[in-house]
């Protein structure tokens, strides 16, 4: 047991080191590298906490997509940030450090004084799970017991995409998102962009399908798909779609719309919004998850790709 604890102590120290580095590093680009490492380490921590679904989401989002998003922004802002040398005065920093320590200490005190018999909804969730036909309680919570949250979360995704798109400069509106900068590359990146996506597609589908009974799910699968699509775009094997394209706009709302439609149908069939009729619960959930996965993959990739920009070339 003490062996286990020392492994966890190591992981904890690593997480804190990476976090401290991503705050303290002088250069933002290296801070971002630190943040990506942090995302990876915290996923290992989630695994130690036995929360595999969360670990999957954290690895896919935390160190994958957020990493690329921040890295490309850091690379663009590098020149502008290099001019910044001033830091807040020492006194101010000490005061800030003291205040932050106070916050940390009070949270830590709360953690140490959590009640011995922890409240839990695990029993209720497992008890109601057979009605959904699913085997993964986390997915049951996401898709059935708290489906409203999940629906709104997808709406948030779509809205933030609308927000990002609306930041396009006027001549760029209805153009294509420009992904990073064209990268002078012969063959090597293209080779990876041709060989990795088949593995990724297969695995993404596996995650979604498996998510019904094992850790995984539509969101985690979609992140892998989004990463593969971005890889193809970055290698120059394909072009990001113009945002005025009708199929794109339909695809972006397809997931939430299916969810809402099934939810509305639930009023008539099962007596409440987002309620599933019991014998068909599992097939309905999978029916909702499939378009939702495509929507999520598309939206995640387009969020990373950023607003459309006027292109100089053809």
């Amino acid at each position, binding site marked *: 047991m003490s062996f286990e604890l020392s492994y966890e102590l190591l992981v904890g120290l690593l997480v804190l080191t990476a976090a401290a580095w991503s705050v303290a590093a002088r250069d933002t680009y290296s801070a971002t590298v630190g943040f990506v490492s942090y995302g990876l380490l915290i*996923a290992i921590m989630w695994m130690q906490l036995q929360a595999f679904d969360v670990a999957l989401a954290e690895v896919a989002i935390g160190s994958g997509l957020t*990493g690329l998003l921040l890295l490309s922004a850091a690379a663009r802002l590098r020149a502008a940030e290099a001019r910044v040398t001033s830091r807040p005065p020492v006194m101010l920093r000490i005061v800030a450090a003291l205040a932050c320590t106070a916050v940390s200490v009070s949270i830590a005190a709360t953690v140490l004084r959590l009640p011995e018999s922890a409240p839990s909804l695990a029993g209720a969730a497992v008890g109601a799970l057979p009605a959904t036909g699913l085997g993964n309680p986390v997915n049951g919570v996401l898709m059935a017991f708290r489906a409203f949250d999940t629906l709104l979360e997808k709406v948030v995704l779509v809205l933030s995409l609308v927000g990002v798109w609306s930041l396009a400069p006027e001549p760029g509106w209805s153009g294509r998102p420009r992904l990073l900068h064209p990268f002078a590359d012969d063959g090597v990146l293209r080779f990876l962009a041709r060989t990795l996506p088949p*593995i990724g597609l297969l695995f993404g589908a596996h995650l979604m399908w498996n998510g019904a009974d094992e850790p995984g799910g539509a969101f985690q699968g979609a992140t*892998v798909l989004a990463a593969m699509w971005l890889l193809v775009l970055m290698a120059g094997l394909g072009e990001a779609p113009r945002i005025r394209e009708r199929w794109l706009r339909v695809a972006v709302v397809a997931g939430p719309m299916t969810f809402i439609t099934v939810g509305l149908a639930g009023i008539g069939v099962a007596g409440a919004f987002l309620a599933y009729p019991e014998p068909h619960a599992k097939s309905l959930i999978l029916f909702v998850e499939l378009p939702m996965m495509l929507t999520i993959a598309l939206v995640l990739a387009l969020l990373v790709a950023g607003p459309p920009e006027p292109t100089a070339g053809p």
Partner: protein
Amino acid sequence: MTEFLLAAAGAVMFTVVLGMVRILRGPGDADRVMAAQLLGTGGVAALLLSGIARGRPASLDLALTLAVLAAFASIGFVKGAAMGQDKSAEGDDDP
């Protein structure tokens, strides 16, 4: 066997951590990217070892996700680093 595999996972994590010094020290972007890649591979190895040791098949999925997305993030690193260079040295060997 379980003990050995867990110890092995710890050992891999520990070595990889030593490599994190390169993230801190640099000096170049390339060195930081390398250390991050090593961290990714080491993380994959540690996940596989501890997953098999504890009999948790889910950690294999996690390791595969990590492997796929680490590859993806590394490309991002390299592109970012290359962009930084392009800014300072205008298109030296770009076609």
